[in-house]
C-alpha cells in the first residue's frame, strides 16, 4: 500500500540553520492499517507526513503508493491519493467560502477541474447526508461561510472533506491538538468512525499517549528523524504508557521530552 524506503530530508542544507529532519525513514503500511505516530518535539513526525504529501521534495529515498512511485510528484498531483487534516483548524478549509462549496472542492480532489459547475444540485443531498453523520447541526448550515464555524466544527468538516472522495491514505497531523478536551474527544470519535467505516489506511500523529495506544492497530515512535519503535497487533493492545516511556529511553538513551505530550495513563 504505502512504502517508504530510506527517505532523508535536510532543511536549509549547507547553511548555519542546517537541520537533518529525516534520517532514513523506512516504513511499509498495509491496506487498512491505522497507525498512530508519537515522538518528542522536532522528532520529524510532521515532516514525515509532509514528505508523503509532497509539501517539500525529499533529498533521497523513495515513496510508493500502491506500487506507483510518487517521490517526484508535486503536492497537487499526490492529492489524488491522499486526504489530509492539519493541526491548525484554519488550514483545512477556505473560510470565505460556503460549507457546501468547500465540500464540492474536496469532492473533486484528484479529479480534473473544468468549466462544469463547481457544485451540482445532485451533490447537495449527498453532502447533507454526510454532514448529518457528524451530528453537529452543520447539515442545516450548508450555505454558511466556513469562517463562522468553531475550531472543532472546522476540524470535523476538514476530516469529512478529506474522506468524501476515498483517499488511499489519510494523514492526520495532531488534528485534535488545538481543540478543547471535549471537542477533541468528539473529533477523535468521528475520526475512528469514518476510518472504520471506509477501512481507510491512516497515519495519525498524536501527542496523547493514551490515544496512541488505544486507537488503531499499529504504533510507531520517532526520534531524531528515525522510527525507533514499531509495534502492532496483539502486542500493541497490551501496551502501557510506561512501556512506551521505557522503550523511548532504551532506544534513544534520553528521557522522553515533549512539552505538549500527555503522559497521563
Amino acid at each position, binding site marked *: 500500500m504505502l512504502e517508504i524506503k530510506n527517505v532523508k530530508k535536510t532543511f536549509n542544507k549547507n547553511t548555519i540553520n542546517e537541520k537533518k529532519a529525516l534520517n532514513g525513514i523506512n516504513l511499509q503500511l498495509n491496506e487498512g492499517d491505522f497507525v498512530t505516530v508519537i515522538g518528542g518535539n522536532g522528532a520529524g513526525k510532521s515532516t514525515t507526513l509532509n514528505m508523503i*504529501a509532497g509539501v517539500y521534495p525529499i533529498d533521497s529515498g523513495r515513496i510508493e503508493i500502491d506500487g506507483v512511485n510518487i517521490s517526484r510528484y*508535486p*503536492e*497537487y*498531483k499526490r*492529492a*489524488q491519493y*491522499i486526504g*489530509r487534516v*492539519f493541526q491548525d483548524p*484554519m*488550514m*483545512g*478549509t*477556505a*473560510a*470565505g*467560502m460556503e460549507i457546501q*462549496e*468547500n465540500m*464540492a*472542492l*474536496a469532492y*473533486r*480532489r*484528484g*479529479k480534473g*477541474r*473544468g*468549466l*462544469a*459547475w*463547481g*457544485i451540482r444540485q445532485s451533490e447537495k443531498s449527498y453532502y447533507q447526508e454526510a454532514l448529518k453523520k457528524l451530528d453537529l447541526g452543520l447539515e442545516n448550515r450548508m450555505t454558511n461561510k466556513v469562517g463562522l464555524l468553531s475550531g472543532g466544527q472546522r476540524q470535523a468538516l476538514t476530516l469529512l*472533506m478529506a474522506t468524501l472522495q476515498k483517499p488511499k491514505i489519510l494523514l492526520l497531523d495532531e488534528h485534535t491538538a488545538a481543540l478543547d478536551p471535549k471537542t477533541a474527544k468528539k473529533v477523535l470519535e468521528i475520526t475512528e468512525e469514518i476510518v472504520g467505516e471506509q477501512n481507510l489506511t491512516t497515519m495519525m500523529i498524536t501527542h496523547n499517549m493514551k490515544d496512541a495506544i488505544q486507537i488503531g492497530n499499529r504504533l510507531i515512535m520517532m526520534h531524531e528523524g528515525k522510527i525507533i519503535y514499531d509495534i502492532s497487533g496483539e502486542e500493541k493492545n497490551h501496551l502501557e504508557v510506561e512501556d512506551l516511556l521505557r522503550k523511548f529511553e532504551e532506544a534513544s538513551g534520553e528521557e522522553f521530552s515533549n512539552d505538549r505530550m500527555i503522559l497521563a495513563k
Partner: protein
Amino acid sequence: MNGLMISLQDAVVQGVLWGIMVLGVYITYKLLDIADLTVDGSFALGGCVCAIMVLVFKMDPWVALLLAGMAGMVAGAITGLLHTVFEIPAILAGILTQIGLWSINLRIMSGKSNIPLLKTDTIVSKFIDFTGANKQAASLIIGVGIAVIMIVLLYCFFGTEIGSAMRATGNNEAMVRALGVNTNWTKLLALTISNGLVGISGGLVCQSQKYADIGMGTGAIVIGLAAIVIGEVLMGKLRSFGSKLTSAVVGSVIYFVIRAVVLRMGMNANDMKLLSAAIVAVALCVPVVLRKWRLKAAYTEGGE
C-alpha cells in the same frame, strides 16, 4: 450648471468604461489578494493595440477591441509566469511587466507617444451611425452593455470548478493544493483573465476618447483600488458575488463623478492622483488603526 451636467455625464461614461478595468483589479486584489501593478501597463497596451489596429491595419473596431483584450491577457500571463514559476513577489513581477510594457507600447505606436483616431470608425461612431444616439449615450450604452456581459461571464466562471478553485486559492492556498489543484495554474489564469479585462477597458477608453496615449494607464491600479474601496463602502452590505462585482463598476463610476466634482470645484487636475492615493491609503489604514485601538482599549491593568 449646464457645464456641470455635461462633465458629470462624461464622468459616468468614463466610470463605466474604466469599470471594466476595475473588474480585472477586483479579481486579483480581492479574490487572490495580489496587488497587480501590471495593469498600468496593460491598460495602455490595450489602448495602443486598439488604436494601431483600427488606424494602421484598418480593422473592425470590435475586432481591435478583442485584440486589445488578448494583448492584455498576454501581459497578465507574463506577470503570472514571473510570479508563479519564477517565484518573484507579485508586486515586483507586476512592476517588471509594467516597465517593460512602456517600451513595448511605444514600439507599437511606432515611437509616438500619442495617436489620435480622428477620422476612423470606432465602436462608438458605428453605434451612432446605427442608432442615431448622441455620443455620450452611445458610449454609455456600449460601456454598460459590456460591463453587464463581463459581470455575467465572471459570475458564471467563478461558479465553475476552475473558478471556485481560483476563489479558494485566494482563501487558503495550502488547502487548495492539498485538494489537488495546481495553485500556480489558478494564479496564472487569474492574472491572465484580469489583465484581459484591463486590456479591453484600455481599448474602450481609447475608442471613446478617440486617441491612445502612452501615459493613459499611469496610476490605473490606484484608480482601480480606490474604486473597489468606494464600491465596498457603498455596497459592502450586499453579500452575493454578483453584487460584489457590480460594486466594483459602481465604485468606478462614483470615483469618476467625485473626480469631476472636485476638478470643477477648482482642484488642480495634477492633484487627482494624490487624492486617489489618499483614498486608498486611508481605506487600508483605517482597519489597522481600529484594530490597534481596540487592542489598547481592551487592556486593563487588573487583568479583569
